[in-house]
């Protein structure tokens, strides 16, 4: 049984369908990424799933329990962290943690708080006002708060938004550790494709409230066979341009002594062999494989599509 199962979820604001009939599930111990541009419906979905926004249709069930009928039972077993919500600024980290420990009726709450603050290396900040923490420290406190009730599923809404790359990297490492150590399920929203590729077992592309693709990051990137071969050479040979034109290959010259040729995964070895036969002295080779961003653009914005090299 999945930890979270969503069927035909709909959320409308007037005539605007922010979430338009989406269905998905989150299995135990898996990280499912919600990916999409701003306004795709990611945050709205998280808000509906955490009960602070009402849905207009569809069903949500956690652990097989209907969320609408038994919200308190479900909320006791889940937790949420969001870049858009913070804790109470004018009380200390410990006081915030204690308030939530009491709300979740955590047994031996003081020890639990001490352990979590220790785990996230913020014990020394326990008696500092939350508003006086740096963005990275706040993120760690938010994560510690989100683990107070040992949730079986965490809903994470862009937890690394507004963090600098170093802190964002540490946050992602923490999430990876959490999954490994606690077998926790995570629904993770982001518009950062690299983050999603790194930590998610499954990716759901959302666009204008609808799911436009859903698979593992590997399978999604494999769905685009296009790849770009970029070759740097010592000096230009006249036969090179003739070869490219005759073969009708999409190509461009990103630099005077560098050429980018669009091809497919399978054709790249042959292409490389043929290029070398033109007599150019290759000094560097780079193969650019499609990213999740390319997949998203191809699926959601077919008019923009996967990038194509211009033909000379």
């Amino acid at each position, binding site marked *: 049984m999945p930890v979270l199962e969503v069927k035909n979820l709909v959320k409308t*604001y007037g005539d605007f369908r922010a979430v338009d009939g989406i269905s998905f599930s989150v299995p135990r111990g898996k990280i499912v990424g919600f990916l999409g541009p701003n306004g795709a419906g990611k945050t*709205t979905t998280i*808000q509906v799933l*955490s*009960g*602070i*926004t*009402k849905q207009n249709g569809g069903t949500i069930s956690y652990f097989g329990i209907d969320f609408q009928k038994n*919200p*308190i*039972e479900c*909320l*006791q077993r889940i*937790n*949420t962290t*969001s870049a*858009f*919500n*913070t*804790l*109470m*600024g*004018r*009380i*200390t980290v410990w*006081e915030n943690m*204690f*308030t*939530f420990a*009491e*709300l*979740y*009726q955590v047994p031996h709450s003081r020890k639990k708080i001490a352990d979590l603050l220790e785990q996230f290396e913020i014990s020394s900040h326990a008696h500092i*006002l939350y508003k006086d923490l740096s963005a990275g420290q706040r993120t760690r406190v938010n994560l510690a*708060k989100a683990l107070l009730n040992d949730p079986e599923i965490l809903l994470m809404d862009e937890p690394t938004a507004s963090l600098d790359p170093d802190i964002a990297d540490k946050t992602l490492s923490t999430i990876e550790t959490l999954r490994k150590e606690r077998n926790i399920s995570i629904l993770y929203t982001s518009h950062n494709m690299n983050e999603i590729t790194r930590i998610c077992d499954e990716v759901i592309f959302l666009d204008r409230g609808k799911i436009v693709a859903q698979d593992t990051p590997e399978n999604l990137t494999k769905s685009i066979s296009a790849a770009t071969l970029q070759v740097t050479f010592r000096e230009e040979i006249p036969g090179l341009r003739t070869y490219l034109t005759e073969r009708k290959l999409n190509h461009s010259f990103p630099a005077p002594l560098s050429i980018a040729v669009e091809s497919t995964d399978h054709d790249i070895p042959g292409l490389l062999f043929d290029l070398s036969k033109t007599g150019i002295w290759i000094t560097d080779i780079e193969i650019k494989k499609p990213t999740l961003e390319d997949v998203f653009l191809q699926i959601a914005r077919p008019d923009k599509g996967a990038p194509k090299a211009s033909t000379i």
Partner: protein
Amino acid sequence: MNFRRVRAILWQELFVLRRSYEVIADIIVFPFTNILVFGFISVYLSKENPAAAQFVITGMLLWGIIWIVQYSVTLGSLWNIWSRNLANLFIAPLQLNEYILAHTISGIVKSLLVLTINAVLCVYVFHFNLLSVGILPLVLAFANFVLFAYALGITLLGLIWKYGTRIQAVSWSLVGLIQPLVAAFYPLSVLPVYVQWVSILFSPTFVFEAVRTALTTGNVDWTLFGIAFVQNCVYCVIASKLFVSMYDASRDSGQFARNEA
């Protein structure tokens, strides 16, 4: 209803209160200075009209109950909205009735504390003992004022949740608009007749009249307290339904999740 969750909100209130000098000023310093001002006015009035002097100082002492309970119910939530923490509380398994109960308890405790401090001040500085109203009338008045303040507080809270912080000023201002109408410091008969028709819509009007009766005659006017109680029950039922519908509307429009400073 889970009392540990109620206690959690009370803990949060205490943590916030300890560091919120504005709240301490609002619920302790300003009522204290008001008592001093009205106390000296009553000293002046007592030379000509001792009863009027007592009405003024009693009204000021008891008005604090309505002010503090309503303020506590409404403002407790605003601290969380300003901190962008309100959604976090309701993502936890916190129920609306637990949240409101906690803030009402907090308001009752604060108002009792302030009432006691100010009443003691009146005994020593103005030689006026609030207990001269009588224990039973005071208890009945206190209970009625708490019910009225609760109904007013949750209505204002519902409005803030539904429309956001752009209307947060009602938390401080609305109760002040009601004050002249409920004849807190003077007999109802002082007001023009057409204003009295509005005044009797508010339960505190009857409670203040009953308190003045107790002060002058030593009797408990059960009719006046009874009317106030029935009105308060109606107000509480209407306010609760309004509050829940505004909470639902706020969750439906997405305002509840968006609520922030």
